[in-house]
């Protein structure tokens, strides 16, 4: 993404949604880490605390979906959709390949919550793909 698209209203709205969600995520992670011991049993209280950061992740996903809806420039929307598709392929590939490695070898287990950060890493790959493909 370049400076101009980022200054468009859709990107500004996206940033306005993303920043508070990120603050909430960090606060929720700190709260859960502070109050839930490592080997805590599942109880209504621990489940509720553990779900809080998940709400922020759902919010991020909603913000990204809303960006696609808000973008009225069809070319920029196409670039974003392409990034999302590359990211989805990237995350699916890593999860599938690592899952098979876990199945047949003793590599460390990949926590399921890492799928979303891996997908976000895939967005960067999608951005690079957009650049090198000349889009």
């Amino acid at each position: 993404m370049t400076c101009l698209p980022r200054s468009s209203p859709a990107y500004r709205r996206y940033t306005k949604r993303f920043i508070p969600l990120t603050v909430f995520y960090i606060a929720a992670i700190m709260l859960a880490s502070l109050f839930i011991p490592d080997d805590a049993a599942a109880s209504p209280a621990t489940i509720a605390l553990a779900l809080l950061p998940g709400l922020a992740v759902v919010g991020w996903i909603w913000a990204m979906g809303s960006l696609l809806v808000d973008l009225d420039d069809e070319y920029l929307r196409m670039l974003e959709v392409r990034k999302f598709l590359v990211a989805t392929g990237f995350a699916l590939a890593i999860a599938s390949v690592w899952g098979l490695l876990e199945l047949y070898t003793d590599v460390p287990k990949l926590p399921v919550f890492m799928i979303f950060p891996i997908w976000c890493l895939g967005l960067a790959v999608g951005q690079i793909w957009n650049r090198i493909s000349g889009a």
Partner: protein
Amino acid sequence: MKNRLRVLRAEKSWSQQALAERIGVSRQSVNAIETGKYDPSLPLAFRIADIFELPIEAIFLRD
């Protein structure tokens, strides 16, 4: 799909930014269309045609 957008824009002495503002898209979009990296949707092609007061087929050409 080939197009005559760059030539038509030059005839009007418009920058890519000026044309982008007239049709309501980003400068990147105009550049991508001009260089053939992106084929616009039919509604956007009609908007471009309206700006130049030309039929679509006078701007966008079959390969």
